[in-house]
């Protein structure tokens, strides 16, 4: 059995999206800036895609700018907000400890340029507390950037409440919604975010394309200077096939969202229940306020990379927050932020189910993880010490 359970990393492309983009990779190769029909057909395709994307998140087309992906959108959103803030003498930013590096590294760079950053804690369940956000906001806060849903532990933040608080206090609110768009309801009107970042390959679109939503009146700062594409807010000839496919994929994802979410939530909870039976294992992140597809566990006494390699041998493709899988010495900043000790954070496993997942697959995964964890513990000196009482169990 081959089971792709790493859908938070990327997703398989939707066949409808592939079909939609194919003409723009072949005969419809025109440059949208050209005035003849071949170019104008590409222009129409982009504008139609913009309408579709806007509709899918309750926005208007003018509020959507296509980018190369989620990271670019995150960067542009943050730089836009701080530029607007700096003009008004506001140089304080509020974010949280479990943001994606596209946000955290951008904030670090801004700290070096004199901006002050407050990172809210996310507590054991991986969720920001609105009252703590309220307390952190200052008169000089120009930006609040809090992700919609976390890429590692799947926790969903109280975006609606956060949006209302930011609106009331006059701070721009950006949300990295890369893991959310197409998977959980996202609505620009109800949620009250001012800026939102999304990436197509997380919702069955192609890699290399994403979009940035900017509420009307929020004037974007360019990251890339050049031509007047994207209303002068993002230079460079548009990725026409990618944009067309992104819109098709998003439309399809939103159409099937409720049914997929219901099915996946049941499968997710079955997977969580099965893995919870493994001794000294613990779920990371909130059990309820989490993405329908996300399961993340820590297992004591083992290391994540060896777990992934052996699961791969059994046909299960997954990921881990272990340092060994990232090439750094520290395990995932997300797991550390929710209070996991380094020792157990190295033994983490993230499984993110696809829309086509089945009960049979979930049961196969549970059995495979159980076997591999037991096997690795069988020659782990840490596990031996835990069992002998020389080390205290933390999970």
């Amino acid at each position: 059995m081959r089971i792709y359970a790493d859908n938070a990393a990327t997703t398989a492309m939707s066949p409808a999206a592939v079909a939609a983009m194919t003409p723009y990779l072949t005969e419809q190769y025109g440059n949208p800036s050209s005035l003849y029909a071949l170019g104008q057909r590409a222009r129409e395709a982009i504008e139609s895609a913009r309408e579709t994307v806007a509709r899918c998140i309750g926005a208007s087309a003018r509020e959507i700018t296509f980018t190369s992906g989620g990271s670019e959108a995150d960067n542009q959103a943050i730089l836009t907000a701080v530029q607007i803030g700096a003009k008004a003498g506001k140089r304080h930013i509020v974010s949280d400890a479990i943001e994606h590096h596209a946000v955290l590294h951008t904030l670090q760079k801004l700290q070096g340029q004199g901006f002050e950053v407050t990172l809210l804690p996310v507590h054991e369940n991986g969720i920001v507390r609105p009252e703590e956000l309220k307390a952190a906001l200052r008169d000089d806060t120009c930006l609040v950037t809090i992700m919609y849903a976390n890429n590692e532990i799947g926790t969903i933040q109280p975006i609606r409440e956060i949006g209302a608080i930011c609106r009331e206090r006059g701070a721009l609110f950006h949300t990295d919604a890369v893991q959310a768009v197409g998977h959980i309801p996202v609505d620009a009107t109800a949620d009250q975010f001012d800026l939102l970042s999304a990436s197509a390959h997380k919702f069955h679109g192609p890699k290399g394309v994403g979009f940035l939503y900017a509420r009307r009146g929020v004037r974007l700062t360019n990251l890339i200077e050049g031509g007047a594409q994207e209303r002068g807010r993002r230079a460079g000839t548009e990725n026409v096939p990618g944009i067309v496919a992104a819109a098709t994929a998003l439309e399809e994802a939103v159409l099937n969202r409720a049914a997929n979410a219901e099915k996946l939530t049941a499968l997710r909870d079955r997977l969580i229940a099965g893995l919870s039976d493994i001794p000294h294992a613990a779920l990371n992140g909130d059990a309820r306020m989490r993405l329908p597809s996300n399961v993340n566990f820590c297992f004591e006494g083992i290391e994540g990379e060896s777990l992934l390699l052996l699961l791969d041998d059994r046909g299960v493709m997954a990921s881990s927050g272990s340092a060994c899988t990232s090439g750094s010495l520290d395990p995932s900043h997300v797991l550390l932020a929710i209070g996991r000790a380094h020792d157990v954070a190295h033994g983490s496993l993230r499984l993110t189910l696809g829309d086509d997942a089945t009960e049979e697959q979930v049961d196969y995964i549970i059995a495979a993880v159980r076997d591999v964890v037991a096997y690795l513990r069988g020659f782990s000196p840490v596990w031996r010490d835990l069992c002998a009482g020389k080390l205290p169990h933390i999970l």
Partner: protein
Amino acid sequence: MALYSEKVMDHFRNPRNVGVIENADGVGEVGNAKCGDIMKMYLKIENDVIVDVKFETFGCGSAIASSSMATELIKGKPVCEAMQLTNKAVAEALDGLPDYKMHCSVLAEEAIRNALDDYYTKHPEKRKD
């Protein structure tokens, strides 16, 4: 290209000399769980020859493969020869390790060195230097 060589994957999937030696003549442990790698080596030594060696490892694929290969390289060898084992020899025997995984071979060398040191501490009369 795959992350690891076939040799690494072979030793990772089918690690040699896994386990514990009760009443070992030398035991060495290196690394810490905080960093994500711990290796423990057990030696059985008779007439200055390593007649048996076992290991336990908490760590990534290359840590397990490095432990396994290191035990293979010293098993049946005289103690003085095992003392000369280098991390480079372990990595080469595995047909190479990615740069950022070379520390796994260093841990294997150190674990064996620690086990031999333990043996010499218990048997100071054996130390020739």
